[in-house]
């Protein structure tokens, strides 16, 4: 907010239900503000690719070391729930893209509807994820209550991986698959939750009329974040649920 700057630029509201946007005082033009924000966000998304990239490298490394462990581990997951969650995320990516489009064309109600549907997609995704994690917990493949407990000094038995049904007994290092599964889907799930929170924040701004054809950058950037969440899952689904 700048009130003492003689060259402050204000983008007028396109209608009575919107508010004008005041370009931040350190930018000369709205275009400069928009491009600076976009460039910064793309840089952030590049770091996100590298964050998940390290995990994918770990996946490929251990998949190559213990292929039979990964194939058997993947069979312990329900690919139908994975496919359902893939469809939910793809649909929510579509509603997000439509939400950004509605903001670009100053359609306030449509923007709120599409963003609300996107949050609904995030909620459904996390509910399905909870059902899956619960099943893993029950079978002793990922015991969430013992994730940070030390392993048994005598037997070398991990506290969080007891595999009490013995489904992974025939392969070496059965815990490796589930450690990678939990780390990758856990960090991805964290992004889903953060993304849903950001979309709700954007919905509040939309309801206040802050976003319209003249200024929609925050909607655009949160949209990019949401699409990245979808992008990561596109690779996680075949690698974890349909282990090649």
């Amino acid at each position, binding site marked *: 907010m700048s009130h003492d700057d003689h060259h402050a630029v204000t983008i007028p509201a396109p209608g009575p239900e919107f508010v004008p946007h005041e370009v931040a005082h350190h930018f000369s033009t709205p275009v400069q503000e*928009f491009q600076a924000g976009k460039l910064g966000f793309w840089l952030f998304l590049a770091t996100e690719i*590298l964050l998940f990239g390290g995990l994918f490298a770990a996946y490929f490394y251990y998949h190559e070391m213990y292929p039979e462990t990964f194939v058997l581990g993947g069979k312990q997951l329900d690919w139908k729930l994975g496919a359902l969650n893939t469809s939910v995320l793809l649909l929510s*990516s*579509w509603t997000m893209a439509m939400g950004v489009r509605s903001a670009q064309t100053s359609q306030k109600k449509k923007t709120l509807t599409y963003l609300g549907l996107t949050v609904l997609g995030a909620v459904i995704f996390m509910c399905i994820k909870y059902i899956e994690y619960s099943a893993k917990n029950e079978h002793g493949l990922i015991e969430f209550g013992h994730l940070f407990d030390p392993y048994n000094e005598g037997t070398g038995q991990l506290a969080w991986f007891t595999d009490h049904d013995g489904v992974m007994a025939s392969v070496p*290092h059965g815990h490796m698959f589930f450690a990678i599964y939990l780390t990758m889907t856990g960090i991805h799930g964290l992004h889903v939750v953060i993304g849903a929170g950001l979309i709700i924040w954007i919905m509040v701004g939309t309801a206040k009329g802050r976003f319209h054809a*003249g200024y929609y950058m925050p909607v655009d950037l949160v949209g990019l974040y949401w699409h990245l969440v*979808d*992008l990561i899952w*596109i690779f996680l689904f*075949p690698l974890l649920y349909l282990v090649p």
Partner: protein
Amino acid sequence: MSDAHDTHGELDMGHHHVSSSAMFSSVLVALLFLTFITVAVAQFDFGSANMLIAMGIAAVKASLVIAFFMHVKWDTAINKIVFLSSFLFLSLLFVFTLADLFTRRLDNEMHITRSPVDKGWVHPSTIEGGH
């Protein structure tokens, strides 16, 4: 890139490409169809080709999301370079990690693991059951 919306003079945000709803819907249908194909081909055993096929389909899906949903197709050159270069650096990580792995497997007999008894480094064949 500019289009019909770049008509607001100096107050225009510039570079905003508004895609048609029909295009977004077409991309969604393509993505759902490719998800179906991903599941379908996983039912067949093509040996090591299964990984290449699965990653190939995922790469096509990812390209659709990046180009259309993320609007990269209409974004500025600098933004394209910044985002797409992350995949270049990622490929460096993959190349050197996998180079290590594939050369290491030439010495597969030297592969060592932790003993469940005393946690010392031992050859896996000395452990009952291979765990």
